[in-house]
């Protein structure tokens, strides 16, 4: 999880990713941030995030982002 926090804080400095639970809904991150985050996650975790997963619910908190990453990693292994 620390690795993810570091990545997210690198993309969007100044946002409290450890505590915020409504990043998109409350306007802490916007569509530009989400695409930037996706781009870096794909590179760092060697995953491909489908465009259909590019929805606000998946980017509301570090936990939901991690859940998405784990789903994609496990789907890739199957």
């Amino acid at each position, binding site marked *: 999880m620390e690795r993810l926090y570091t990545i997210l804080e690198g993309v969007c400095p100044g946002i409290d990713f450890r505590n915020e639970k409504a990043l998109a809904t409350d306007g802490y991150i916007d569509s530009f941030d*989400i695409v930037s985050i996706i781009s870096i996650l794909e590179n760092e975790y060697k995953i491909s995030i489908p465009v259909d997963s590019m929805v606000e619910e998946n980017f509301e908190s570090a936990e939901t982002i991690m859940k998405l990453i784990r789903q994609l990693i496990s789907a890739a292994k199957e």
Partner: protein
Amino acid sequence: MAYFNIGKIRISGIANAVPDDVEYSEDYSSLFGEEYVKKFIASTGIHRRYTSHRNGVTASDLCCAAAEKVLTELNYDRSNIDALIYASSSRDYLAPVTACVLQDRLDLTEECICYDVPLGCTAYVYGLYLAALQIQAGCRSVLLLAGSASEQLPKGYVPTEIPMLSGDSGSATLIEAVEDASEMYGLLRSVGKKREILIQPYGGQRHPFWRLVEEHGLQRAAELNNRWYMDGLEVMRFSLREVVQMVGDFYSYFGGSTDDYDILACHQANQLILKNLARKIKFPIEKIPMPITEYANTGCGSVPLAICEHYTKVPVDREAAEILTCGFGIGLSLGIVKITVNPKKCFSTLKVSERFDDKVTYEKFH
């Protein structure tokens, strides 16, 4: 019939014009905060733009100047121009069409077919297709004018959000019927069911101004009228799903690969979309010109601007370059078209400061 392939089409010359008034993203730091503006520049790539909101130059003024440049540089006989297509949603009047105004200003003959194509960011690629159809139908040459300009704003106007995403430009492309010229081919699509993700809903016949006044009062109606709405995340999804799919379909249908094309002149939505699009379609990023950094997103005029900015900065010692043009945006509408350009006939960008005086007075039409 989304795919097309039309032969004997020559792109004889392309020119662009921008308003002679520049603004920098950092100019807005005091209004929106330094950090916000830095983030804006990092994600969009936009450092500056040329804008008409102060000098009132219109998209048709820009296109007209670009057309004069092309016709003069080529020493072209205007009586050969059998059609003028004004591909833009920035119109001079609600009616008549701007193409007829430009026919008069450019001194084209009365035998010239003139019409507007009021699309957004696909206006240029659709315009190329329509121009090719006109050639196929017997026209000797077609002048395709594509551009966008913002409205002149009152002095002292203070924007409520950073206005730097949109810049202004106008272009002119002369397309001729030439027996040994190459083919123009491509693919055009529309996704009307998603029209609400990028829309200017008020002020037309569906939601007229008077009804807004009745429901919300004059002040609120004036605020709502002509307002733009964009669902940013949906637009990102569209750009990285439908556009990626279209490019894949283009290669499947016509064959070839990225190596076959000199550049991909893409609509300049924002730098983040362009970089991610390049990554998804595996097109070398260095072959995608990004004038967005200096001109912002110039809407209908962004593709021809990308072509000319590339070839004037990276001169090529050839008279033919096979390139891809790609537009996507409001509609939703999207298209990819292969054309052949002469890099030496892609001219440098002009700056225009004069607004055309049509002599219209309020006393004349009251």
